[in-house]
């Protein structure tokens, strides 16, 4: 089996691009893991849609306050300098361009920046939550994802085939194999695993990968 990053390693890599003092929203599920890997000396301020800025880690089991939860409905704690606000103010932060970074999961990302991450099709109960809002407004909308599906199909495509979350919204993708920017409707490769050839990466990608400069090695610690 070819080498690839674990989810923790993808989250670690995404965390390295978050500046000190950045306001950040992490999508529920996998993206929440990014908070664990803030580089030493940097402190991001995390936003949750349900009305908290500057929340912290989960409390010890048994000490949960169920009025103090994040968007994933997990119990959290507060850091000094936190604030509570209502849902309209919370999404004013999202839509109004006040977040520096939103980091989301994805089913599919297109070279146009289109994102599909809320629905796998018409069966079952549809649920969107804040996904469609979060893809708009943040100064940088990044995706973290396995490079391919469990079945090995590419998730980075010319066009999404699943229902869209947003159009032209994603600016960077951190995958299990590479770091790719979306610029001018193209995937531009920035970093890839050293052990992986460009051709092997391209073969697992559903749209053309462009080069606009040198490609760095994607290096992450053991986690």
């Amino acid at each position, binding site marked *: 089996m070819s080498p690839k990053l674990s989810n923790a390693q993808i989250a670690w890599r995404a965390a390295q691009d978050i500046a000190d003092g950045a306001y950040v929203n992490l999508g529920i599920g996998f993206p929440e893991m990014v908070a664990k890997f803030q580089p030493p000396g940097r402190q991001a301020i995390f936003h949750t849609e349900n009305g908290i800025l500057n929340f912290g880690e989960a409390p010890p089991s048994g000490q949960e306050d169920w009025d103090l939860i994040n968007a994933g*409905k997990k119990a959290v704690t507060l850091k000094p300098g936190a604030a509570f606000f*209502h*849902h*309209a103010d919370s999404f004013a932060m999202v839509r109004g361009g006040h977040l520096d970074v939103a980091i989301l999961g994805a089913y599919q990302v297109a070279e146009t920046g289109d994102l599909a991450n809320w629905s796998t099709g018409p069966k079952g109960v549809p649920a969107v939550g804040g996904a469609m809002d979060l893809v708009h407004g943040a100064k940088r909308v990044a995706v973290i994802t396995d490079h391919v599906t469990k079945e090995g199909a590419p998730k980075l495509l010319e066009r999404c085939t699943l229902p869209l979350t947003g159009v032209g919204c994603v600016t960077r993708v951190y995958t299990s194999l590479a770091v790719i920017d979306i610029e001018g409707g193209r995937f531009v490769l920035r970093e890839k695993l050293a052990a992986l050839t460009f051709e092997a990466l391209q073969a697992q990608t559903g749209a053309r990968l462009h080069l606009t400069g040198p490609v760095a090695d994607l290096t992450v610690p053991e986690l």
Partner: protein
Amino acid sequence: MDKTIATLAEAVATIADGATVMIGGFGGSGAPIELIHALIDRYRATGHPSGLTVVNNNAGNGHVGLAALIEAGMVRKLICSFPRSADPVVFTERYLAGNIELELVPQGTLAERIRAGGAGIPAFYTPTGYGTELATGKKIEEFDGRPYVQERWLKADVALVKAERADTMGNLTYRAASRNFGPLMCMAAAETIVQAREIVAPGGIDPETVVTPGIFVQKVVAVPDPQQEETLNRAGAVH
């Protein structure tokens, strides 16, 4: 000018069949469990109110609160952003059987539509949902070269909201993240019914820290030790 109502039963006694009812809370945080249960109790005793349209971020969890309201058969339609939960079986079964209507709204659009209803703004434009199936049939307009979706206000006949402290004039504070949709729903409903852990005399809330001014509130009822949906569900409670 005393908006205090003595009992939960009395507080929910006039909600009519077919009413649109906004229910505060994000999951269990801010869910007005006691008001919802009082409404269910009334329905079991009288058959009313039925055919409700409920606005909430979610679709209930387990067999208490909103889930119990749906389970009792009182809800015709749900307007929400995320009808999933740890135990969504009540809504899921009814939805898949075609027994409950769902209007799925992105969470920020839901919040803004409710605020618009409260603020007298009949419609607004948002980037949210543009180019997705949730914007199907909606009016699109370009501003500064970018397309936006027109969304309409959302109003309700009644709002059920959980607060931390109320004064008798209806001024409210909330507790932590349970604030969420509460202040917006108070604005958007013709009649806002609030359960508060504590009801104090006017002057008992610092005017600087009032979150919902009393003008948005019609009834307050004291629930000194409110139940938490999450705790009830972990204990397997059924209402």
